[in-house]
């Protein structure tokens, strides 16, 4: 048998039907659902008298619209947002799918809840009407975002019509330097490949620096595979993965655990398997990074300066001019001289317990800069509870942060947490697009530690300079 990549193995285990031209019905093990991209799909089922084929494999949670302030127990003030969440409440009940409502302690961002509850397991296929479904690839699960028509397709058939992607290997060799995190890895990779560099590929991340990451860090890396244009990102499961999964609410138990482990341990890329593209970065070369523009590929080490449009070629020259104008930045400025109005810490990229610990390490016993607006939004109610148990909540409040309830919040600003015009934000989220965090808002993507450092100094800051 010819050697296979991890992607090949998971793909092969899920082919329900293959046509002569390679068009495949891929079976879906887990379908995650949130309120913004599902209402039209459920409505489609009703209009065609169809049902949810596998309600036991379908898990829903509201996250995009939910307010993150304590008054949300009284409901959502914004009418359209309220209607959207109410529609999910109704659809979950009517179609009999698993559901974590807004005020359940297990509620949170769908990509944090799935792994936390043990729904996401190695070797699975996982989809969701959300591009950051790539997150679940950290478990060695083939996970990607889909549109609403495909949500309806999966609800009705538990399959997706797919053509296989190409295999890409991203290897991060060696060790990371102090102050460098999973977020810096994933941004550095996008800086290298560009936001279209992964188009048509599934990426497998490997190498010592990836192996050394916790599950939280691996989720951060895979989360932004989509920003590199890839269909999905994968990391082969290992002892770190098994340890994280073991004992979770929906993870297998007893004999089933043993059987699962037997298969999970075969989920790695075989010696000699071929990749269509290989990208290698040295772990020790990666610096703490920050984005300066309006595309996640606009990334530079914090020690660098804002670039000049002439540094680029082709269509990117005009895009950079537009980005610098939008961001209100002058070429040649030190990145560390850029003043920040707001800090947002949270999102499916960096809203897990390890991220909050990293922030606490930087801000413990200190105060954020006067006038700084800084909020920390945990990825789930359970992350919040754990942070409080560890005393992190108190550290944040004493430092001057707003310590919020779980949700997507200012990552995409569909709830009341938004930037105003020209407000400049150091954000641990995943997209710095124009208007992403609020109309004319300006986003600099950073790691949690770097966001914490910016909150203290009021400027983009090299966290390694703080002692």
């Amino acid at each position, binding site marked *: 048998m010819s050697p296979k990549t991890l992607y090949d193995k998971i793909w092969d285990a899920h082919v*329900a*039907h293959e*046509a002569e*031209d390679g*068009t495949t*019905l891929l*079976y879906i093990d887990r379908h995650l659902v949130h309120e*913004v991209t599902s*209402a*039209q799909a459920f*409505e489609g089922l009703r209009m*065609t008298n*169809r049902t949810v*084929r596998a309600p036991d494999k379908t898990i829903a949670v509201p996250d995009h619209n939910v307010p993150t302030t304590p008054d949300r127990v009284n409901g959502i003030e*914004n009418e*359209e*947002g309220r*209607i*959207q969440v109410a529609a999910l409440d109704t659809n979950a009940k009517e179609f009999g799918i698993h559901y974590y409502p807004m005020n359940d302690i297990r509620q949170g961002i769908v990509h944090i809840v799935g792994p936390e509850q043990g729904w996401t*397991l190695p070797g*699975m296929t996982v989809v969701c*009407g*959300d*591009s950051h479904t790539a997150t679940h690839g950290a478990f060695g699960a083939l996970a*990607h975002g*889909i*549109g609403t*028509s*495909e949500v309806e*397709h999966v609800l*009705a*058939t*538990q*399959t997706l*019509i797919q*053509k296989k992607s190409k295999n890409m290997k991203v290897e991060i060799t060696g060790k990371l330097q102090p102050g460098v995190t999973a977020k810096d890895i994933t941004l550095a990779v996008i800086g290298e490949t560009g*936001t*279209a560099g992964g*188009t048509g590929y599934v990426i497998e991340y490997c190498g010592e620096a990836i192996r050394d990451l916790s599950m939280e860090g691996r989720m951060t890396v895979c989360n932004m595979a989509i920003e590199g*244009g890839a269909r999905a990102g994968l990391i082969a499961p290992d002892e770190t993965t098994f340890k994280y999964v073991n004992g979770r609410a929906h993870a*297998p138990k007893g004999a089933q655990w043993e*059987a*699962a482990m037997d*298969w999970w341990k075969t989920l790695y890329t075989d010696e000699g398997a071929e990749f269509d593209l290989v990208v290698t970065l040295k772990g020790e070369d990666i610096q703490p990074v920050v984005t300066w523009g309006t*595309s996640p*590929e606009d990334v530079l080490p914090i020690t660098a300066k804002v670039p000049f449009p002439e540094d680029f070629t082709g*269509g*990117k020259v*005009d*895009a950079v001019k*537009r980005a610098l104008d939008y961001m209100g930045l002058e070429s040649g400025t030190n990145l560390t001289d850029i003043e920040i109005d707001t800090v947002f810490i949270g999102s499916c990229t960096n809203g897990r317990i390890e991220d909050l610990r990293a922030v606490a390490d930087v801000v413990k016993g200190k105060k954020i800069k006067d006038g700084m607006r800084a909020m920390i939004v945990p990825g789930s109610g359970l992350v919040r509870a754990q942070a409080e148990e560890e005393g992190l909540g108190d550290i944040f409040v004493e430092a001057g942060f707003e310590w919020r309830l779980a949700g997507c919040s200012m990552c*995409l*600003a*569909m709830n009341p947490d938004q930037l105003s015009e020209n407000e400049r934000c150091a954000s641990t989220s995943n*997209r710095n*697009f*124009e*208007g*992403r965090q609020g*109309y004319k808002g300006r986003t600099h993507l950073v790691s949690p530690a770097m966001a914490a450092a910016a909150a203290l100094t009021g400027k983009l800051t090299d966290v390694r300079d703080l002692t």
Partner: protein
Amino acid sequence: MDKFEKLQGIAAPMPLVNIDTDMIIPKVHLKSIKRTGFGKNLFDEMRFNRDGTEIADFVLNKPQYRDADILVAGDNFGCGSSREHAPWAIADFGIKCVISTSFADIFFNNCFKNGILPIVLPQEQVDILMADAEKGANARMTVDLVTQEITTSDGDVIKFDVDAFKKHCLLEGLDDIGLTMEKAASIDTFEEKAAQSRPWV
């Protein structure tokens, strides 16, 4: 779904690279629970000032492109969020074909579910079509899915590739779910086998 066979119409040029789905339809317009009515907010923040007045130099506000049927766009069109509201807005506006050097994967798939034909071509050919689009409303372009040919206003013909299955679905206006349900027996069989081999799923 509407069928797509042949389209003759006005092509609007948008050479900017990395046009993302937040640009195509900003999140403030994602709160509807319907699939229709998004066209009025297509490219909202590029197209309108906050007070609702038009930004005159945005391409779709120019008289010659207000009724555009085709978009010729810069590289990596449709990157970012999976929101199908993006192709819904494009189709609702009246654009049925987008041409670029590359598209983001999810957006590309979403187009085919909504009667929109996304066409990938090499840079040199996109440059030719961009120049043709820049001539304005009198330069009408033709896109023929059956023959897989684009004809410029000067009569130049450019061939394009399209996945055979996706082409078939667009030409016939087929509903994917209906097609898949015809293969229900295969899905049943798969589930029975998987229940044995991976019972924990």
